[in-house]
């Protein structure tokens, strides 16, 4: 009988810097090829900047505008974080309540799934009216609603979809409902929750940026992008879009990192092979 892993100490975060670099290489090469082709096409066919600026133009606009963009990002990031946290907390709380009452969990989750299909970001102008165009609450509100539904649906699923064998084991141990929740349902829901949080972290960025397109404080990233595009200063607008994309990527990265730290035991983290 052999263990797959080295004896003595369990491996926590698998892989290493070298592994990461090796896995990242093809992605980097692909990205460079696309950027190169983009640059080449724009220069060769003399594409006008309102259609597509060259990557080098976007880069130099980014360098020029860096202070403005970064200061604009600060407000946007706070709205994203506020929306993400409030949406997640509300989603988790409702999921906990709903999963306790089997009779309502089906209908409530059914409605949540349907609402989740609606383009919630379309509420952006409404939220601007409700909370005021320049307030943080209108941006965080849209983001929060966008995060709420996937977090609710996924967490509830994780709480409810427990392996029958695990339930039977707890039953054979005469575990109380509270113990079943704490020792079985909650940990079982963690992977589901993190899937929702990874999705939600990018949704929150979309929600805030789009709501800012409809108006917001002058130093917000979405407002900046919309203004530059209407001026028209397309390279600057694209530089803003680039930063917004990096923001979404960073949020996703933070969530993945949290996932790795909090559930090193999960298959999505260790990949099944030690």
């Amino acid at each position, binding site marked *: 009988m052999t*263990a797959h892993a080295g004896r003595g100490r*369990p491996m926590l975060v698998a892989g290493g810097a070298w592994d990461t670099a090796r896995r990242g290489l093809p992605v980097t090469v692909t990205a460079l090829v696309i950027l190169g082709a983009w640059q080449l096409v724009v220069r060769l066919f003399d594409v006008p900047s309102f259609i597509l600026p060259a990557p080098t133009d976007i880069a130099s606009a980014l360098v020029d505008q860096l202070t403005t963009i970064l200061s604009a990002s600060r407000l946007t990031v706070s709205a994203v974080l506020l929306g993400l946290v409030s949406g997640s907390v509300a989603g988790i709380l409702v999921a906990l309540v709903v999963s306790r009452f089997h009779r309502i969990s089906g209908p409530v989750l059914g409605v949540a799934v349907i609402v989740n299909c609606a383009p919630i970001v379309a509420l952006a102008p409404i939220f601007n009216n409700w909370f005021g165009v320049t307030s943080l609450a209108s941006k965080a509100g849209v983001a929060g609603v966008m995060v709420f539904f996937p977090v609710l649906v996924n967490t509830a699923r994780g709480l409810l979809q427990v392996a029958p064998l*695990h339930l039977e*084991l707890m039953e054979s*141990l005469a575990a109380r409902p509270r113990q079943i929740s704490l*020792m*079985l349902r909650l940990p079982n829901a963690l992977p589901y929750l993190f899937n929702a949080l990874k999705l939600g972290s990018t949704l929150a960025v979309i929600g805030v940026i789009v709501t800012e397109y409809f108006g917001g404080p002058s130093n917000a990233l979405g407002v900046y992008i919309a203004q530059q595009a209407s001026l028209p200063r397309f390279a600057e607008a694209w530089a803003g879009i680039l930063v917004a994309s990096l923001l979404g990527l960073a949020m996703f990265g933070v969530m993945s990192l949290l996932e790795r730290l909090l559930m090193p035991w999960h298959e999505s983290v*260790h990949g099944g092979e030690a």
Partner: protein
Amino acid sequence: MPESPIIRIDGVTKQFNPGTDRSVTALADIDLTIAEGEFVSLLGPSGCGKSTLLRIMADLTPPTAGSVSLNGKSPATARRDRDYGMVFQQAGLFEWRSVQRNVELPLQVAGVAKQERRAKTAAMLDLVRLPEFARHFPWQLSGGMQQRVAIARALSADPKILFMDEPLGALDEMNREHLQGELLRIWSDTRTTVVFVTHSITEAVFLSSRIVVMSPRPGRIAASIDVDLPYPRTAETRTLPAFFDKITEVREALHGMTVAEDAA
């Protein structure tokens, strides 16, 4: 016959979907007593109700008629008093818990203090010979090791009875024979009463002090065969003529009823 029965089953019948046209009688009028310290296998083809009988003993499903007494109590009380431990066909470890924390689960549910839990868990991991894997996670263990952890978990709260529902069924032959030997050693170390469900004749003969042969549709006890091969049983036991004779005897008991059924 048993001096002090620890398990007594009187007239247990189990029907699924009673009173409907999908009604199935899984068990019909089962009487069985098991003495303290016995290793009893419930052996039979699939559909003979052996797992259902085990689940009734463990209070995981109620009988339609009849009564069960465990350690002198109702199965419900025995379950709450944690008089038995249970091992399933799948190890069913919590993948988010380390081996150590999986083994201590029954103690944690019972509200045992952390220090005592740790001491007990260490002893259990010694018993199943996995002490160096305490801090590993289930995904880092082979199937056989996972099942050993499940056995340690089932025994951690010192139950009087160990219920095992085809616990080695998911393992390959090599692992299976190895674990059979381990299981006998653990049984002799702990003196627990074992009720073991299997459909393997060789496995039942090698392990058991008594084999209860069951027949299907509806599930009944066809024979109760004492296995008088001396313990400790080893790899050598598997080569003894007496071992093969017993296998033949059990096979004929199983076969008798299939022939009867075919004739019917």
